[in-house]
């Protein structure tokens, strides 16, 4: 009888232990769930106007936010990563945003970063003196990004056609080497390559000063990511303005930090900033807000210009691309 009692007691204990173990196994997934908020990866190439994003990182402004910066060698690579879904947000030019929209993607412009005022240029070798001189010449251009727009505008303003020049598709990271090696007669490029090539005697043939208020740098976020993680994006936008304030108040310190990343001397960096203008919070609000926001007009003009130059194959609805609600 005792034996039987022991058996039943032992088996009762075993059952309890088994239940416990299976519960533990069953629950372990819910004990260690995946992180709730999706991290925001922001891609960018090297451009002085994007540097406050990195300055903010250096200053620790992203702490507590799941924001990480992803650095790419060229805008084309940023676009590719954005298309592949590897990054959720990107610093791009407005024409690039329109091309993304043309592909049927859902980019949302949440912030104007800067406007190019000479930072984008066409530089020629020393025997080239004007855009007209480019006829029949090899022109290096990042034709999968802003470069195509800049070149098309320069050719159009000089009443030339694409077939008048020989295109050499090069991404911005290849520009300096190709130009210095003489593989190309001219290059469509931007800061900081611009400063470096001007230093070695390149001739400025064309710049964004010739097409003011056309080249805007903006921050775009994938539409569905923005819907689900609005708070994160809003935090980023606020940090952006915070960083601009820091930069205004501590220009020297900010320049030192930024120059290191740009591989420029602080003075050169400050000089390169002459080629662009940062867009303040007030200007952002003014440009993005309202039913007929000024930026929408800019985008419409840009769109028409791109269609005219065959950079866009079909029209895009620019109004839906702007989200001013995070400013």
């Amino acid at each position: 009888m005792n034996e039987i009692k022991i058996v039943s007691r032992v088996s009762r204990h075993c059952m309890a232990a088994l239940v416990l173990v299976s519960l533990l196994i069953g629950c372990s997934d819910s004990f260690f769930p995946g992180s709730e908020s999706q991290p925001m990866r922001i891609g960018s190439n090297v451009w002085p106007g994007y540097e406050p994003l990195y300055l903010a990182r250096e200053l620790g402004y992203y702490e507590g936010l799941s924001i990480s910066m992803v650095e790419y060698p060229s805008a084309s690579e940023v676009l590719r990563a954005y298309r592949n879904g590897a990054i959720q947000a990107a610093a791009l030019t407005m024409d690039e945003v329109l091309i993304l929209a043309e592909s049927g993607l859902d980019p949302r412009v949440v912030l104007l970063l800067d406007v190019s005022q000479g930072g984008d240029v066409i530089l020629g070798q020393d025997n080239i003196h004007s855009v007209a001189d480019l006829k029949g010449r090899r022109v290096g251009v990042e034709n999968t990004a802003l470069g195509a727009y800049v070149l098309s505008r320069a050719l159009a303003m000089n009443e030339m056609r694409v077939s008048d020049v020989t295109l050499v598709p090069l991404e911005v990271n290849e520009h300096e080497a190709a130009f210095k090696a003489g593989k190309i007669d001219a290059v469509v490029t931007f800061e900081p390559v611009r400063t470096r090539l001007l230093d070695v005697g390149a001739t400025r043939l064309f710049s964004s000063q010739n097409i003011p208020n056309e080249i805007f740098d903006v921050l775009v976020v994938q539409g569905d990511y923005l819907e689900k993680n609005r708070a994160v994006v809003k935090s980023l936008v606020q940090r952006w303005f915070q960083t601009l304030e820091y930069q205004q108040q501590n220009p020297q310190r900010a320049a030192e930090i930024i120059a290191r990343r740009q591989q420029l001397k602080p003075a050169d960096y400050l000089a390169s900033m002459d080629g662009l203008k940062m867009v303040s919070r007030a200007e952002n609000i003014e440009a993005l807000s309202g039913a007929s926001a000024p930026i929408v007009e800019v985008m419409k003009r840009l769109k028409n210009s791109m269609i005219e130059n065959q950079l866009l194959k079909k029209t895009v609805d620019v109004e839906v691309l702007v989200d001013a609600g995070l400013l």
Partner: protein
Amino acid sequence: MNPLLLLPQRWLIPSVLLLFALMISMAALFYNIPRAERAIEKEGQRVVVQMASRIQGAINGQLRRNAIEDVRTEVSNLGSDSAILLALLIDDQRQVMAATQYALIGSSVMRLLNAEELAQEAESRRHVTGSARIESNHDYISAAYAVTLSIKIGEIRPSRVGVLFIRYDLARIKATTVTALKHEAMVMVGFICLMSAALWLIFYITVTRRVAQLVASTQAFADGDLTRSSGVTGRDEIAEVGRSFDRMARVIAEERLSLSESEQRIRVILDNVVDGIISMDGKGTVSAFNPAAEKIFGYQASEVIGRNVKCLMPEPYQSEHDGYLNNYRVTGERKIIGIGREVEGLRADGRTVPLELWVVEVNQDNEHLFIGMVRDISDRLQIDRMKKEFVSTVSHELRTPLTSIKGSLGLVNGGALGEIPGEAHAMINVAINNSDRLMLLINDLLDIEKIEAGKMDFHIEPINVMAFISDVLSANQGYVDEQKVSFKITSEVPGAMVQGDAARLMQVMANLISNAAKYSPKFDNIEIAVQRADGSIEISVRDHGPGIPEAFHGQIFEKFSQADSSDTRRVGGTGLGLSITRAIVEHHDGQIDYESEVGVGTRFFFGLPEYVASGEGGAVGVDADPEGSAR
């Protein structure tokens, strides 16, 4: 082995462990396989995304430079990864530009991909995006990544879009992993089996074997092998149990030994005692019969043990015996138990034998046992009879001549033969006195003999106690005067009645008064008192004599006893008086006793049941004693 041990510990514990461990490992296995598959899918997806986007970037660069052969090499290289089932570069016309299989180059993608994959490819092309997703049957991952094809003439921005397609195998990796997991689980199960076996062995050596030994030892011990030791050694709990067992066994063995020694002694006593000793249960079944009993009854013990004790009784006791025991069991009323009595026993040869019997009741474990002790009293009865006959004969033979002597001396002393001289007169008086004493002695002897033989007659009638006392005083006045003492009545109970034989009670009083007178100082009072005490009438006689010595207290009522035998001469008396007195009082359902203090005096007192004339008549306690009549 005890048949109740269906599941001994040495099996139970390893089995439970085995079961437990198997269940855990099975649960882990069934939990791990899907988890591992999920992990493989996730990791595969990550690998494919990495690979596809890397190749996509490289192809973009090569196409930008129009290096189509480099693109083909790049795609071919993917074939070296065994997990990649298929890699294609598809142009904007949906024709294969490059592939892991050369034969596919130039063919339409529509035949190469399934509908799901074609949809994915089209999606990728339309949005210029890249994605990797797990096929709906979870067997592989398909990745479609858009690439920018070479620029067309006159175009500033390349507009042609191609797709890099990769089909990545999951099924084989999953199968390999699941096999590995199962193998791992089998190894684990095997290991647990080994552990269980080891545990069984350990249990067998450390517990089961020793417990079995302990069980065997206790069973042997229970079967009577008191010298058996537990045989368990060690320093653990089982060894402690073993040591306790050994200690207990030793103590029990010692006790058993001393018990058997004492039993031996008692048996020797029983075997050698003169009295027969017969043990029986409540129904009278004999359970022990000692040698003395064998001798008395002429039976062997074996012939009697198991039979009913009534076989040892002659009729009518034999027939009545069941009735006695039954009666006793039901009413608790004892007939013979605890009281020595004389009975007759029936011997094996049919003769009866006079016995003295004592029965002792023993309560053992709620069971009534009776022990009967019998003594053959044939010889004693013979002697008693001879003694009585002798006394009777002698008494009668003495009394007749003594009567003549006394009568003759009375006549002589009364002057019937003429005046006798003064000296002769004194001598005759001595002769008369001694004749009287002799007569008294003979009467007493005859009384005793009558009492003992139960032949004394009593004429019971109601007696007025105070009138009786008055008669007593006048009857004894002469003797009292002679002794130069006087009576004094100190207490009276007027109208008190008792039932009794007045002549016999007179004899009691005469005895007590003569004793008191004999021992009283001259000119003292003998105090007579009558008192009512607890339903009886107590009559006492007190003197102020020397008292009865302490040493003599126990035998004062025995036959032929006097405190100081030297007194016999001085005060006269036979030493039978008090014995007769007690017999008479007890025959009246009374008790007699005395108080005495040396140098102060003695008080004898006896109580008789008070007789109440109205109501029940003569029913109060003077009937013949039932026990007495049984004698």
